[in-house]
């Protein structure tokens, strides 16, 4: 029975991870470059799970130490704890980090450094361009990020940003934050990027709604810090992208 339960728990974990990789929601949790590693890990637990039924039943006269082969009976709560990732993964619908995670994080309005940013901005390639050709020349997240601490330099420039809506009590009714997370390994290290947007109908936007914002940048101030503010001309509601984070 012990053996059967161990096998079930290990194989369930492997299959769960495999399905997450197969339907690409694995990207909600980790950097894309670790996907293969997760797949290997899933195969690993499947293999060790099945091995309980393949190992030869008893010791022969070899010189290895017998006690290392004793499979101490696993306590039931140990198995329960190891079932938790699978249970949580199956019962809680997969969703990328959003506004709630921002509540607890340092809003990275000023601390962007060039060294932190990805070399190749994946934005336009991955997400298409809802505004067509006219906005091709507009600024994206990374160009803004490089000049973030010198908002004057961005004055009057066109920009188009895609992200989720965030708001807290520091925001006026006609403004919100368009946010994105930058992930270097897994969501535990996600750093929040955000640009303050001015839009008369800001109050109607729900938290976590994904939007594509087009407008012009203007140097302004937020929470006592000089920041570029995006004065929106158009705000379009969009579906969350398959790849919700930026990776560095």
């Amino acid at each position: 029975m012990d053996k059967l339960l161990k096998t079930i728990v290990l194989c369930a974990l492997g299959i769960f991870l495999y399905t997450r990789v197969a339907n690409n929601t694995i990207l909600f949790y980790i950097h894309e470059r670790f996907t293969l590693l997760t797949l290997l890990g899933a195969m690993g637990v499947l293999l060790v799970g099945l091995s309980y039924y393949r190992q030869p039943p008893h010791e022969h006269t070899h010189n290895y130490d017998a006690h290392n082969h004793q499979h101490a009976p696993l306590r039931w709560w140990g198995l329960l704890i190891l079932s938790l990732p699978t249970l949580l993964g199956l019962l809680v619908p997969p969703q990328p980090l959003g506004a709630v995670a921002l509540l607890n994080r340092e809003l990275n309005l000023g601390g962007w450094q060039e060294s932190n940013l990805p070399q190749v901005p994946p934005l336009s390639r991955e997400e298409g361009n809802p505004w067509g050709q006219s906005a091709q020349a507009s600024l994206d997240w990374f160009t803004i990020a490089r000049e973030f601490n010198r908002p004057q330099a961005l004055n009057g420039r066109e920009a188009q940003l895609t992200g989720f809506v965030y708001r807290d009590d520091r925001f006026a009714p006609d403004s919100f934050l368009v946010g994105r997370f930058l992930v270097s390994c897994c969501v535990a290290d996600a750093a929040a990027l955000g640009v303050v947007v001015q839009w008369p109908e800001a109050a109607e936007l729900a938290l976590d709604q994904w939007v594509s914002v087009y407008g012009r940048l203007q140097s302004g101030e937020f929470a006592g810090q000089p920041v570029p503010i995006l004065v929106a001309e158009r705000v379009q509601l969009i579906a969350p992208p398959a790849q919700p984070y930026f990776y560095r």
Partner: protein
Amino acid sequence: MKNPAALFLLALIFVTALIWAMTNLTPADVSSRFQTFATIFLGIFIEAMPFLVAGSLVSGIIAEFVDQGALVHFVPDNPLAAALIGALLGFAFPVCECGVVPVTRRLYGKGVPLAMGISFLLAAPVINPIVLASTFTAFGWGDVLFWRFGGTLAIAFLVGLLFTLFRPERVLRPMPLPAPTLLLPTVAVLEKCIPEVAESEMSRDEEEMTAREGNGRWWRALAAAGDDFLDMGRYLVIGSMLAAAMQTIVPQATLVVLGEGALLSVIVLMALAFVLSICSTVDAFVALSFVHSFSIGAIVSFLVFGPMVDIKSALMFLGVFRRRAVALLIMLPLIFSLLLGLLVNLYG
């Protein structure tokens, strides 16, 4: 009720109901927080899991194929040399802080001296080619790289040496003892369940047996790896949950606001390293984002202390060491990393 399988199933149903209720029956702000917690928890767990699998596989292979006598013969008697070799062993077993624990435990099972295991445990997550490369990529050739590697080596060596003051049986948790009587019924049951095995036991010809034995040893190594994964994995799960809960409940700003000053900044980043539990292979990239708001000493301490001790690895230590030893294994690196950070800030 004494039947563990029944207890397991009951508890499973209860936990399933609890998670379902947290997701579907609570007010929106609670359920969205719970969802964020689940995402961060799965992020840390999924990220770390392959490394734990790899560590368990190495451990299983050591268990099955490394001859205890040969290993003990190879290990130096001198504790200084043992601790030094332990600290450098990461180049032979490139594991991060999740994989290092089962390997260390297995090495102890094979008779490796206490000092060597401790130094290996503390140093290997940093002193290996992968972390060397990632730190170099993030910080280039310079102070941070130098202090991270020098500091880790020195601290792992020192702590390993300090542990020679204790008797191993006061430090290590006892390994499962041999129980040969238990083996016999298992064989009988297996023979009934799996005809293939029973059959193989009957028709044994000398050559055929050696061949099957070769395969069998691999399967046994895998099963040992599975047990290791189950043993250590539960600490990884609890640690990831604590780290995720901290991230969902405690605002990062409360920590970061404290980040000025030679001493305070070091303490703050060390606390952050402990809480965040980021894998040592990538923590350099995370540390990069602190460069402009924290002192160099604080960043060095973050990169030295985090891989040695964080929530999840500290919990995993409990599977190898006795509680008091775990407390020491947390306190000594903490004190030494703090001193290192201060040293870098004041004289670096």
